[in-house]
């Protein structure tokens, strides 16, 4: 067991889980003494009938307020609008039902209503909150972000063209409800992309410098569950066991990375998302094998250990120790390939194949310098095992674009060939 010289760990969120966990939502309302919860969600969740399901099983108070206007890329204006509704209707708690955008919006609403403020910017940054916020429960409808157990929210300010980061332990939701029924309607591409997002959370948490024995254990279990269930989840979307396992894995991965950190795959992924508008999970899947190769020189042993939860004991034992890290990368590439096949090629294994609705490439070469520049300013590089400069970032993007191995090139300064 690896124990660093110093570490911090916390899991502030209560976990309510099961195939019928929603039925016990009353536990939250009782504990919060809430008579008028505000349900923050989006139109897709409503259309999928999930709010109806919650209302019919959880017996919410008649005075509850449903705010279903959260867009996929929520911003400060949406937050302000929903804060006004919260106050106008006299709400006293928040139930967030949705994916990352909904959850982050709910956290931002909670900051303003708890601090009785109208200026979200005032709380931007780390540790700007000093007391508990209003009760917040999260019911995730995707299995990927991990935001349901983290103290972080990201809200866009489109007028200022920037994203605001909020980080505080007080932002952690009070409770998360993991119910397999909530993700049954997730389409194959989103199942693949969000599942891979969770996998990257777990893998980067396991190899990064802020790792500790708790984050390791959570990450390990998450990797095991995702490798066992992700493909089944794409092939058999109606399988409640698989959905439950993937939702649990996503939450465990959230516990892992929020107590360790993520790294270079997220740095590149955030930048490709910001500059080119590519889906976050898609960026994660493409970036993961390249990111592992990039870090091999510094943490090849840890990458090699992940072969066990990813591929199972037989493959692990049959692979010589010096080749396990490379085998881990090969295993991820194979998972990517299978996901592409299972989603009718909607899920891409390289940036070259990511196209918009008009069939135009979303990550053209002319945008690479912007991506590289943005990457170098990304905070997730801080605890990454391997450092990165502009040339490294360009080499990384090229490999991810071509779907090739970093070690195949001669120009890269870091990579698998150094480790082996």
């Amino acid at each position: 067991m690896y124990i660093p010289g110093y570490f911090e760990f916390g899991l502030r969120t209560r976990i309510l889980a099961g195939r019928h966990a929603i039925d016990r939502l009353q536990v939250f309302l009782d504990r919060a003494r809430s008579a008028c919860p505000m349900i923050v969600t989006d139109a897709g969740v409503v259309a999928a009938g999930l709010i109806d399901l919650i209302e019919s099983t959880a017996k919410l108070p008649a005075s509850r307020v449903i705010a279903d206007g959260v867009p996929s890329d929520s911003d400060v204006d949406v937050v302000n609008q929903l804060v006004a509704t919260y106050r106008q209707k006299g709400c006293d708690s928040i139930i967030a039902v949705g994916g990352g955008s909904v959850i982050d919006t709910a956290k931002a609403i909670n900051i303003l209503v708890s601090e009785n403020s109208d200026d979200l910017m005032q709380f931007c940054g780390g540790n700007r909150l000093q007391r508990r916020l209003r009760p917040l429960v999260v019911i995730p409808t995707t299995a990927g972000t991990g935001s349901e157990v983290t103290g972080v929210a990201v809200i866009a300010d489109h007028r200022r063209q920037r994203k605001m980061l909020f980080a505080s332990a007080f932002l952690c939701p009070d409770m998360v409800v993991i119910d397999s029924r909530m993700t049954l309607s997730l389409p194959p591409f989103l199942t693949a992309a969000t599942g891979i997002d969770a996998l990257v959370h777990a893998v980067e948490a396991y190899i990064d410098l802020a790792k500790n024995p708790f984050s390791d254990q959570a990450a390990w279990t998450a990797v095991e569950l995702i490798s066992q269930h992700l493909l089944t989840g794409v092939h058999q979307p109606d399988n409640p066991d698989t959905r439950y396992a993937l939702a649990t894995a996503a939450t465990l991965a959230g516990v892992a990375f929020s107590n360790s950190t993520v790294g270079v795959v997220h740095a590149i992924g955030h930048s490709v998302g910001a500059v080119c508008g590519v889906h976050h999970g898609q960026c994660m899947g493409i970036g993961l094998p390249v990111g592992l190769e990039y870090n091999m020189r510094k943490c090849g042993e840890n990458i090699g250990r992940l072969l066990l939860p990813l591929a199972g004991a037989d493959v692990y034992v049959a692979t010589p120790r010096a080749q396990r890290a490379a085998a881990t990368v090969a295993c991820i590439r194979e998972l990517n390939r299978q996901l592409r096949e299972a989603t009718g090629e909607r899920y891409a294994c390289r940036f070259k194949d990511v196209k918009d609705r008009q069939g135009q490439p979303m990550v053209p070469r002319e945008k690479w310098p912007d991506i590289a520049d943005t990457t170098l300013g990304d905070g997730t590089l801080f605890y990454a095992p391997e450092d990165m400069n502009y040339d490294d970032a360009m080499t990384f993007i090229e490999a991810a674009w071509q779907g090739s191995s970093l070690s195949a090139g001669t120009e890269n300064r870091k990579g698998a060939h150094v480790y082996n």
Partner: protein
Amino acid sequence: MSDQWQAEYDFDCPVSIHAGNLALDHLPFELSMVGAGKPLILIDRQGDGALHRLEKQIIAAFQSSAMQPSLMTPGAAGPDRWANARQVVEQYARIGADALVVVGAGEIVDQAKLARGLLSVAGQVDRLSVNDLTQIQSRPDIALIWAAGPGVDGREASGWIGRPGDASVFCQALTPDLVIIDPRLLDAMHTREQLPGWLNALVWAIQAQAFGPGNPFSGMYAKTAVAGIWPHLSFAAGSRMTKKTCTSMVTAVICAGFGLSPTAQRPVSALGRAVSVIGRMAPGIADMILLPYVVAHDAVAVSDRLPDFLTAIIGADKAALAAPHRHGVEVLRQLYDLPEMLHAASGGRFPRTLQEAGLPRFLFDEVIELAMPASDRGRLSAETMLAALDAAWAGKPVIN
């Protein structure tokens, strides 16, 4: 999905851990983050040398802050720990404190938890009934921070008051908000004397999962506990631990407390408590000797639940070499071998069997009688207990 998990579960363990070098120096900052500026600090005064060191460390931690902490030493554990808790409440009100910090382990942490309970209820209350305790909602403006000192047995960071498996109550709301594990506070730890407490924690972690109901989160803590405790046991038995391994051990022991579900069955502790009372031995030693003999009688535990611990005990590389269907049996074998290993490491001091621990066979009936009423005995019948006692007395492993 792992078959041994509960179909529906509720996991709540909202404790933060700050562990490692200089962790104590974060205390003023952490207090300021919850809006506290005047903490009442309760210090466990066990042993003169330990007292001096603990006070010095605490005062040093506050030197660079503007805070003026008040130090207090509650009375020693007595028949009525409520009296000590009331003293704490009175002092808290007298100085206008806004947070409780408890330094030490065991009884003093229980007193701090009870004091927080009393402070959280409205009006003048001298004590709370068990029912009140389990229903209580702690006031968010009274932070409870625990800095681990010598004597940690694992339940301090959880909602337990009293020892699990003994007369104990679980009160979720009295769980500390933050745990600080700083090697400087563990200086005075005598590792050989601590060994029974640490073995107890190991047994709690394994039996909580073996006899369920488990879930992936309690499992995460239980496996971290076993992985952290196991490799250090032989060093502890031989009094050969370093500052770093002490910190690791204490961290792992605390994890065992997190992994304890208040609803889990504890058949090993139920029988172990009876053995320790009748046989006059430390509970951790009785529990450790009994653990494999009790688990071996539960086929479900061996085949479905023990396998999870093999990686934690022998490491991923060796575990991968074992045939998957043998993982449970391999864990059982490791558990049978542990007393032998501790016996060797301790120069023959650690007993390998109940016979070596001094329990006469003719007292078995009394042991079973004492263990029978325990509500958490679970599937353990009188016949099974007798068989387990017989085998553990003679040191005859049962492996199917």
